[in-house]
C-alpha cells in the first residue's frame, strides 16, 4: 500500500468515526441517578464555618428548660455548700491543732493578788488568763499558739517574780530574769 493510499484510508476512517451517531440516553436516566444519591456529610471545618456564618433561631419553652435549669441550680449551689463546709473545717482545726493550753502554779504565803504576765499578753494582766486560788497556791490557765513565751508572776501589782519551777530563764535587762516556756500543740507546756 502506497503512502497516498494509506493517508486516504486514514482520512476515510476518521470521517466514518466522526459520523458515528450518538445515542441519546433515556429521560429516566438522570432522575434515576439523582434519586440514588444521598447528601455528603461535610467536614468539621465546613460545619463550623456554616454554624458561625448562618443565623440561628432559638425557641424558649420554659417547661422544656426546667430540668436543665434545675441541674444548673444544683451545680451553682453545691460548690457553695461544700465551700462553706471547707471554710468551717480549718477554724475547727485551728482550735484543736494551733492552740496549746498552758497551766502554771505559783505559791506565795502572803500575796493578796498574783497575776500571770508574759509575751502572750504583752506583759499586762488581762482576762485571757484564767486564775484560781487554792489557799496559798495560785493556778493560771492560758491558751496560746504553739511557740516560745517569756513570762513572770506579778505579785500585788508591784513585784515581778520569776517562776521557780521554770526550766529556762533569761535575763530581761532590768535585773530580774524572765521564765521561758515552750508551748506545743500536744499540750506539753514546759521544757
Amino acid at each position: 500500500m502506497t503512502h497516498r493510499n494509506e493517508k486516504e484510508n486514514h482520512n476515510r476512517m476518521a470521517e466514518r468515526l466522526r459520523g458515528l451517531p450518538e445515542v441519546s440516553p433515556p429521560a429516566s436516566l438522570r432522575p434515576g441517578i439523582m434519586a440514588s444519591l444521598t447528601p455528603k456529610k461535610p467536614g468539621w471545618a465546613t460545619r463550623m464555618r456554616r454554624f458561625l456564618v448562618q443565623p440561628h433561631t432559638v425557641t424558649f419553652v420554659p417547661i422544656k428548660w426546667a430540668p436543665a435549669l434545675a441541674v444548673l441550680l444544683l451545680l451553682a449551689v453545691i460548690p457553695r455548700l461544700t465551700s462553706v463546709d471547707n471554710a468551717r473545717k480549718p477554724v475547727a482545726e485551728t482550735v484543736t491543732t494551733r492552740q496549746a493550753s498552758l497551766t502554771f502554779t505559783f505559791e506565795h504565803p502572803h500575796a493578796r493578788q498574783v497575776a500571770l504576765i508574759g509575751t502572750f499578753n504583752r506583759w499586762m494582766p488581762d482576762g485571757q488568763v484564767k486564775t484560781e486560788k487554792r489557799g496559798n497556791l495560785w493556778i493560771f490557765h492560758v491558751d496560746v499558739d504553739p511557740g516560745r513565751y517569756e513570762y513572770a508572776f506579778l505579785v500585788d501589782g508591784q513585784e515581778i517574780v520569776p517562776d521557780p519551777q521554770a526550766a529556762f530563764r533569761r535575763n530581761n535587762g532590768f535585773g530580774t530574769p524572765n521564765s521561758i516556756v515552750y508551748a506545743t500543740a500536744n499540750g506539753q507546756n514546759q521544757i
Partner: protein
Amino acid sequence: MTDETRIIAAVLDGEVNAFEPLVAKYEKPIFNLMYRTTGSLDEAVELTQEAFLKAYDKLEQFQLGRSFFSWLYALAVNVGRDYLRYKKRHPPSIHDNPGHVAERTFQDTAPEDPRLTEEVQSLFMALEKLPIDYREAVVLRYREERSMQEIAEMLNLSVSGAKMRVHRGLEKLRAILGDDL
C-alpha cells in the same frame, strides 16, 4: 474558580442537587461509552448509573482545578472494563431469565437511512471487537476530537502512550473492517 469547581465544592458541602448539572452535561458521552462497551441500551443505562454513583462517592478524591470530565471518563472506562471482565467470567446461560424479552441493541436505535445503517453498523460492530482501551482511544481522537493530552488523562496513559494507543487502535480497526473500508 470554574463553574464545575464551584459545583463540586457545593456537592462536597452536602448539597446533593448541585450534582445534577454535571450529570446533565456528561450523561450522553458516558452513556455512549457504555453503549459501545456493552452493545446494549439496558446495560448502558445500568453502567452509566454505576459510573455516576461511583464518581459521586469518590468525589473527595477529585483534585479541584483538574478536568472533571477527564476524571469521570477515566472512572467510567474502569467501570466498563470491570463489567467486561465480569461478563467474561460469568457468560450468560440460556437458562438465565427464560422469559426475558430481547434487549434493545444498536440496531434498534440506528438512523433510518438503510445505506447509512449498514455502514454505521459495520463500523460499530468493528469497534465492538476492539479492546476497550484501543476503541476508546480512536473514538476519543476521531469522534470526540480530543487532544492527545486529554486522551492520556482519560485513559490514564502518558501522552506518548495515548498516541501509540490511537495509532494501534486505528490499525486494528482497519484490519477488522478490511474491504468494508
